[in-house]
C-alpha cells in the first residue's frame, strides 16, 4: 500500500510524463491540470486507468462529479480518501 506522499508523487510524475513538456517540480498539488490544458479531456481516460491501478479500485465514470480531476489535491481527495 502506498503512502499519501507516494501517491501524490506518482500522480505528479504521471501528469508530467503524459504532458511531455512540464517537469514534475513545476506541478504543485493545486496546479489546475485541466484548466491549463496540461491534461486534455482525451487523456483523462488514461488517467482513470492509472488511478484505478494506484487505488486498486474501479472507477464508475458515469457517477463522477465535476472537478474531481481539477488538480492533484482533488484527485487524491476523491479517489484515495476512504
Amino acid at each position, binding site marked *: 500500500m502506498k503512502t499519501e506522499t507516494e501517491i501524490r508523487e506518482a500522480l505528479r510524475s504521471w501528469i508530467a510524463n503524459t504532458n511531455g513538456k512540464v517537469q514534475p517540480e513545476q506541478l504543485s498539488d493545486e496546479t489546475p491540470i*485541466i484548466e491549463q490544458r496540461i491534461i*486534455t*479531456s*482525451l*487523456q*483523462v*481516460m*488514461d488517467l*482513470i*486507468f492509472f488511478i*484505478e*491501478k494506484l487505488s486498486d479500485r*474501479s*472507477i*464508475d*465514470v*458515469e457517477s*463522477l462529479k465535476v472537478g474531481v*480531476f481539477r488538480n492533484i489535491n482533488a484527485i487524491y481527495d476523491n479517489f484515495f480518501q476512504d
Partner: protein
Amino acid sequence: MTDFTKTVRKLCDASVKDYVNPYSYLDWPESMDLEQWFTSPELISLYGTDTFEGLTEAQRKKLSFFEAVNFFSLNINGERALVQGLAERLYRKGNDAITSYLHHFLDEENKHMVYFGGFCTKYAGKTYPDKKVVFPQEYEPGERDFLFFAKVLVFEEIVDVYNVAMSRDERLVPLARKINLLHHRDEARHLVFGRQIVKDLFSVYAPQWSDEIKQRVRDYLKTYLAVAWKEYYNPEVYRDSGLAEPYEIHETAFQSARAREHRKRVSKGCVTYLLENNILDEEPVL
C-alpha cells in the same frame, strides 16, 4: 446534383435494400459455453505477449469471450455518443443534403446496439462502461461538427477491420461471427459517408481556421486515435478472465512492439486517408 448528394442517395437506397429486423434475424442460444472462440486469437489484445503464451487453450477461449464483450461494449459506448450526435444534426439548417441518410445511420446504429447489448447482457450479464470523459469546450465555426464526424470515421474504420476479419473466421461461435458480419454490412456504407463528410467539412472550414486552431484540431485527432486504441486493452477484461495484475498486463500489452505494429496496421486505412487529404500532417504515435 453534387457528387456528395449522389452518394447520399445511393447510400439511402442501399440501406432500404439491406434493411433487417434485429429482433428476428439472429438465433440466440439460451446459454453459451465459454470453451469456444468468440474473438479471433490473433485479435485478442494480449496475443503475442508472455501472458498469452502462458495460458492454456481453455483460458485463451475464456479470455476471447471477455474480449468480445469488451469489443461489443466499446461499440455500444461509441454508438451511444454517435446516436446523440446524429440526432442533434437531423433537420438542422444546412443539413438538407444529408438528413435523409442520417435517418438510416441512426436506425442502423440503434440496431447494432441491440445486437451488441443483447450478447453482452445475455451471456456476460453486463457491458463494460465507457471510461471517456468529455469536458465542455468552446469551438471555432465548424470545428465541433468536423471533430464529431472525424472521430466517428476513426472509430468505425478501426472497428470495421476487426469486423471483417472476424466475420470470416470459421473458428468463432456462429453468433459472434454473424454479429460481426451484420455490423460490417452497415458500416461499409457508414464508412463511405464518413470519409466524404469529413473531407467536405475540412475543406469548407479549415481555410477559415487560424494555424493555431488547425494545429489544435490535428493534435486532438491524433490523441483520439491513440486513446481509441487504449480501450481495446481493458484491465477489467483481464480481471474477469481470472488473470492476476490486470493493470500491469494492460500496460505491458499496450506497449509491446507487436501491439504497436498491430495498431499501425489496423489503423493504416484511416490514417492514410487523413494524411492524403491533409487533414493530418503527420502520422500519429499509436
